[in-house]
């Protein structure tokens, strides 16, 4: 029976063309909303991933500057449940290449423990350093090129004069965050400590939390147990205001873009009116021949759900294409110095899909309900007479 009724509707080529247009319009609208939400989620996700690469899940530093990682601190770290941590000695300096120079943050790390935390895989000899991809681009550096680093050398030597050392570029790495790729240079911790006369002192500890542990719990535990001179921060706190802004924007844009969906839903309304006018002859005849209202309702609902389902499916396809363009074509790249990330990617959770698809379905069902009530309110005789006579 469904087949017979659907044949009545879809044997008409103009209806098929109209429905394809309606599905395409709705799919585009849904994909605009999904794309926007996906880009914002992707921005947040990529930025957090990039930040994690530099600092792990959380880190602490002393407000007094340098400190030794004594037994007491190690004990506190272990009792917090954290098993992976790495110490860092970092200082500011300048990278000099010919006529070009750039202010940098030099991080001295223990390669093995640092890799466990950051997943940045590099191992350097004492005369080598690792630089960020943007710094390499800015200074025109490639692997094995020489780079001079100017560092403050503590209290020894001529005051006010920096220590200038030359290193080979042993690795070019990427955090995925423009600012970090432009500013951070990695050296062996021992080499940096020696060059700056810092002895065995460090100024930062980065930690990874076990998967079953809540980051905030660890943060508050460390804050409570470590002395007041230590500041404990989560990896994303540096960008807290930015993340909050993105969250608010996402909600607002999601709501505003419902207008785009509503415009597409009006196309569906036009389709319902079109099909009602064009096919009401058939619908009333079917009712006259014994089709109950329940079945008419089911058929309409089936058509509406079909439009919605196909639109959702097509929008997923469109999002995949958009995502591919975003990650594979240079014209889709962002100015990283403004947006922190040079490249965006679309990240959508199941909740995002359900929310956008669900809202579009809600709009459709509201219109469907109104259209159906209008059709139901007309008697068969009224319909037959109006349509046939």
């Amino acid at each position, binding site marked *: *029976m469904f087949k*017979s009724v659907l*044949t*009545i509707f879809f*044997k*008409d080529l103009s209806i098929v063309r109209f429905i394809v247009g309606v599905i395409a319009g709705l799919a585009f609208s849904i994909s605009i909303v999904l794309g926007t939400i996906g880009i914002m989620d992707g921005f947040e996700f990529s930025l957090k991933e990039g930040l994690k690469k530099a600092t792990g899940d959380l880190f602490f530093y002393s407000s007094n500057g340098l400190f030794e990682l004594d037994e007491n601190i190690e004990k506190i770290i272990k009792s917090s449940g954290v098993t992976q941590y790495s110490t860092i000695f970092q200082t500011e300096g300048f990278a000099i290449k010919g006529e070009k120079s750039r202010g940098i943050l030099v991080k001295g790390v223990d390669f093995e423990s640092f890799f466990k935390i950051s997943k940045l895989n590099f191992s350097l000899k004492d005369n080598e350093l690792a630089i960020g991809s943007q710094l390499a681009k800015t200074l025109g550096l490639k692997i094995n090129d020489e780079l001079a680093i100017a560092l403050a050398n503590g209290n020894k030597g001529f005051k006010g004069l920096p220590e200038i050392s030359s290193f080979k570029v042993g690795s070019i790495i990427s955090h995925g965050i423009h600012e970090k790729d432009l500013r951070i240079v990695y050296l062996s911790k021992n080499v940096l400590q020696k060059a700056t006369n810092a002895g065995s002192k460090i100024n930062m500890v980065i930690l990874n939390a076990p998967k079953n542990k809540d980051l905030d719990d660890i943060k508050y535990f460390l804050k409570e147990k470590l002395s007041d001179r230590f500041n404990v921060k989560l990896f994303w706190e540096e960008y807290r205001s930015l993340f909050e802004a993105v969250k608010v924007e996402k909600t607002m844009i999601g709501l505003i873009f419902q207008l785009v969906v509503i415009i597409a839903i009006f196309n569906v309304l036009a389709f319902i009116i079109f099909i009602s006018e064009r096919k009401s*002859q*058939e619908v009333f*005849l*079917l*009712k*006259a*021949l*014994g*089709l*109950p*209202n*329940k*079945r008419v309702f089911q058929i309409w609902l089936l058509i509406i759900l079909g439009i919605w389902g196909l639109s959702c499916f097509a929008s997923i396809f469109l999002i995949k294409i958009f995502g591919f363009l975003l990650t594979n074509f240079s014209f889709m790249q962002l100015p990283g110095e403004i947006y922190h990330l040079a490249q965006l990617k679309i990240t959508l959770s199941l909740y995002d899909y359900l929310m956008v698809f669900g809202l579009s379905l809600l709009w459709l069902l509201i219109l469907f309900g109104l259209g159906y009530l209008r059709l139901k309110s007309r*008697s*068969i*005789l*009224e319909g*037959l007479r109006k349509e*046939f*006579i």
Partner: protein
Amino acid sequence: MSSLIEVSNLRKVYGKSIALSDVSLKMEAGQHYCIQGASGSGKSTLLYLIGGLENCTSGEIKIEGRSLFGLNDESLAKYRNSYVGFVFQFHFLLPSMNCLDNILLPARIGDTYSKKIKGHVEKLAERLQITHCLKKYPFELSGGEQQRINLVRALSLSPKLLLCDEPTGNLDSANSEKVITLLKELSNLNHATLVVVTHDNGIAGKFSNKFFLKDGALA
């Protein structure tokens, strides 16, 4: 013994115009009836009300003792589907389906389609000499052929009640007579009660059981 159709004090009002006013009549099973009246007299409205296509303003129609307007939508749809066969004045054949599919539409709507029904339909088509039309689309047929397809569709589920709205409206008198004879024959064959609505005195003269409607009331 109760009548097949019992209409009591039936009234139908459309806005300010009264289509039927206080109509009461009875029809017995297996008989042939004619409802005659001028255009706008309410005869088609009465037929559609008996056929369950419309609700009345007041009054009652009982079919085999059961109130038609007391049925829920599902039961009323079933009544229209299998108890009543409608022969519409304008044929109302769906242009997107071939004639066989048009004929089998009531069976498909009622989920009662079977080879037996198809066989019954083919026999009727053979009897009405329209077997060659079954695979054709309605627009490929003449008016007379469309009328016969319309008739086979109405009889496809062997209804107990055959309701015909001006079945000879577009035909000359010779063909009109043939159609009426055929309707009587087929209703006898199916043991169905035949109700024909017409404005034509000649057609009405072919029936011994007649109701005459004037301005919505039985005259």
